[in-house]
């Protein structure tokens, strides 16, 4: 627990792999926008004792050569990350971070090439499906937010059985939607099964999402709705009595 600006703040680590090009963006939001103590967590590092939460940022770790996340998952930091998760601490994987978490088996399913076979960068409406998680408690259920996506492999795949399990445990956190909240094929930008944009693990301390909440955390850049993801994490930390 760290005192920061006089309050008990949450210490964030931003996992930095070679090629993680959104690490600085996440750092900026955590440090300058939600004002939490933040440090980089280098891929060769293994000590997480000072951290309360870890962000696995977007980008192209190891160039995404071979397969996004495939090489990153063997980094020493990933073993530490697994222990961190077992302790119940919060981990959020954004874009490439989501891909890495699925490759590492911390989240089910996999992300394959977009249906269009093209990189896709645009604003995208997503709908909050479960507002009772440590990552979404500042939203209300079915709240819509406009959050940028930017990916080549964001097409979430899971088999029917896995999907049923996700549904049963309310692990689907975000779905791609239209601006008026419709969720169907026409509002699915990349072909994801069931319009899935973000999921949690069963214990709800690991979130993976393709959209980039750090890109809509300041109103100058469009809107600041994404900031609530980070604020939810901080709230859950404060509420947990830390």
């Amino acid at each position, binding site marked *: 627990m760290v005192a920061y600006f006089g309050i008990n703040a949450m210490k964030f680590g931003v996992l930095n792999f*070679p*090629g993680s090009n959104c690490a600085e963006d996440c750092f900026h939001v955590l440090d300058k926008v939600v004002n939490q103590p933040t440090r980089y967590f280098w891929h060769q590092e293994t000590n997480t004792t000072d951290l309360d939460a870890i962000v696995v940022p977007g980008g192209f770790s190891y160039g995404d050569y071979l397969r996004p996340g495939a090489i990153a998952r063997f980094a020493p930091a990933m073993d530490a990350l697994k222990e961190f998760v077992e302790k119940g601490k919060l981990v959020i994987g954004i874009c490439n971070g989501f891909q890495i978490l699925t490759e590492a088996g911390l989240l089910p399913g996999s992300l394959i090439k977009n249906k269009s076979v093209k990189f896709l960068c645009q604003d995208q409406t997503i709908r909050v499906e479960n507002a009772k998680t440590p990552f979404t408690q500042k939203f209300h259920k079915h709240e819509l937010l406009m959050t940028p996506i930017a990916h080549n492999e964001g097409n979430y795949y899971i088999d029917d059985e896995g999907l049923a399990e996700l549904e049963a445990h309310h692990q689907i956190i975000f779905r791609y939607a239209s601006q008026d909240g419709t969720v169907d094929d026409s509002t699915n930008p990349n072909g994801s099964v069931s319009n899935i944009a973000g999921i949690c693990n069963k214990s709800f301390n690991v979130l993976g999402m393709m959209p980039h909440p750090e890109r809509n955390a300041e109103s*100058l850049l469009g809107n600041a709705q994404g900031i609530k993801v980070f604020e939810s994490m901080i709230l859950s930390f404060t509420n947990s009595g830390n």
Partner: protein
Amino acid sequence: MKPLWKEAGLTQKEYDLLLQHLGREPNPTETALYGVMWSEHCGYKNTRPLFKNFPTTGPRILQGPGENAGIVDIDDDQVITFKVESHNHPSAIAPFQGAATGVGGIIRDILAMGAKPIGVLNSLHFATPKGKGHTKWLISEVIRGIGDYGNCIGIPTIGGEVRFAETYRGNPLVNAMCVGLMNKSEIQTASAEGPGNSLMIVGNLTGRDGIGGASFASKELDETNQEDRGAVQVGDPFMEKLLIDACLEVFAKDFVVGVQDMGAAGIISSTSETASKAGNGVEIDVSLVPTREAGMSPAEIMISESQERMLLIVKQGREDEVNAIFHKWDLHAVVIGNVTNDGFLRVKEGDVTVAEIPAASLTDAPIICRVGKVPDYLSKTQSFDESSVSLPDDMNATLQKLVSSPNIASRRWVYRQYDHMVQTNTVVRPGGNTGVLRIKGTQKAVTFSTDANGRYCYLNPKEGSKIVIAEAARNHIASGALPIAVTDGLNFGNPEKPEIFYQLEQSILGISEACRVLDTPIISGNASLYNETPDQGAIYPTPVIGMAGLIKNVEHITTKPFKRAGDVVFQVGDFSNEIGASEYLEVIHGKISGDVPKIELALEKRTQDFVLNAIQKSIINSATDIGDGGLAIALTECLYETKFGASIEIPESSYRLDALLFGEAQSRFLLSVAPDNMKTFQSYAEQSNIPISKLGIVNSSGNLRVRYQGESVIEQDVTTLESMNEATFPEMMR
């Protein structure tokens, strides 16, 4: 058999000069080194005499042409650095790899200045695809290549352009621009200072790939070039990302005295340039260069264009510390030689000296002074009679056709393939007047654009080129920015032909004059000549203008779309009766002819100052310039992505209706102003002696209505126009 020097691309005169420099016959390695360094691509033999015309200084300009990129002061001890570069020929034969490595190359120029790259842009020129053939593949591969590199490396692609004309069918243009940001104290120079200091090569291994790229770029494209395969390389954006991260970490320490990227002609060019800049010599041992393949000859090692490499000149004794930082990033930094004080470039292979050349002679390619001749076609196109063109019956249909024509249609299909938001600075994304980046930790923003208009420059090389500069500047003004500097990419045909040389010379004169009047000095640039094919001849003369602007307060950032129903729409500037050289004349009447619209630079400057001041007074709600497709197209663009409509009345005049609607009269803007601010705006215009016309009102009808002389001439549903505008690219590229 041809003598070796001829094989190396040298002329008899050049060879004689070489003999003077050396005072003896060169050996084959030396001949090869001169060959690449004195190619047009490296030596700027044809263009250097013309560059004298460029204005290159100003209170904000800290570095003009001559370094890897120019530097502009943006206050608070911060500077930006930027440059444009062409990769036309590699992209023509291997579009994905050619475009990708083009982006990679220009990023390294910015990195070599010591800056963090914060944005890339591109300027692409193609023919329109016919069916499913080659051109469609070429376009999609170029765009994929640009996206792939920029996306992976984490630099947002914040702007650019795609333009179509038949002239680019066999010879597409792929120009890329990169922008960097740093503090003044972080500026690096490409100079090999301090005899005894070490030359270190960092990044990728050196291979046989790309050998002869520089001379390849200095040739016309024909069938046999298809065999110039070594000239094509595969980009490695991941390696470049590591290179950026590692270099910036090293630069922050006090270990490095000089930096040079390795672009065309690789080691030979980077070492000889840094040496001659410092007035020093260098000694290189090629056997120390880490290579990818065995058995490379010294000449091959020296001229290889393997990508993602940099040359650092490192203080003696600091080599291990530099290497340790690179090691952290899984890279190596290897000493390949050192700075000497004798002015010679000495290449050794172990103990054996294989080349010994005065370094300055390599970088001082003999200038070729040519004389231009007015091309024949100009007398025909200039005598074009506009009155022979009849007015279209239906302006609605005309507008629809223009809205969906390839040069005017929405480019969303293109830029959604580029990550334009990474680094979280992009306030105005592609599709706006300029790409606008905020600067974290300040109130400032910077604006960037690339602009070209091949048809204008073809129909009037000098005046057309002026317009390209003016038009570029208008985009910045409309964004709320003061235009501050320019980088130019000169894409022309074979300068050995007098008509082409005329185009080049006139274009440079036009650019120079416009930059002088508009106070946007030229800080860097690139020339790509020999853009010709045997079938089609030369491309349109196509100078690509990259421009930067500065916004002191992010609150002044202004965008195109109308903001509120009830706002009043104004045109700044005057209508004219001109339709020559316009998009309208080409798309609707199939004519590429006439003269370009008249441009008066002093009026242009006053108009721009007026609009920027009005924006800074916070009385303007939206702004755009009036360019391709004229007023009607500008109006549609202000309505897209809004739920508004507009009711417009064009003021009485004696001009043709098509000129009023679609003509491209210069020095114009389209603004919207809140009713409360209207008086202030009008009296400010009067004070400034700038012509404005009140055109109408923004409303919530969702329709664009234009009336002239009491009659409706356009009545269109905006949603329909917008879907037509959006449909063109997806359909063309399906």
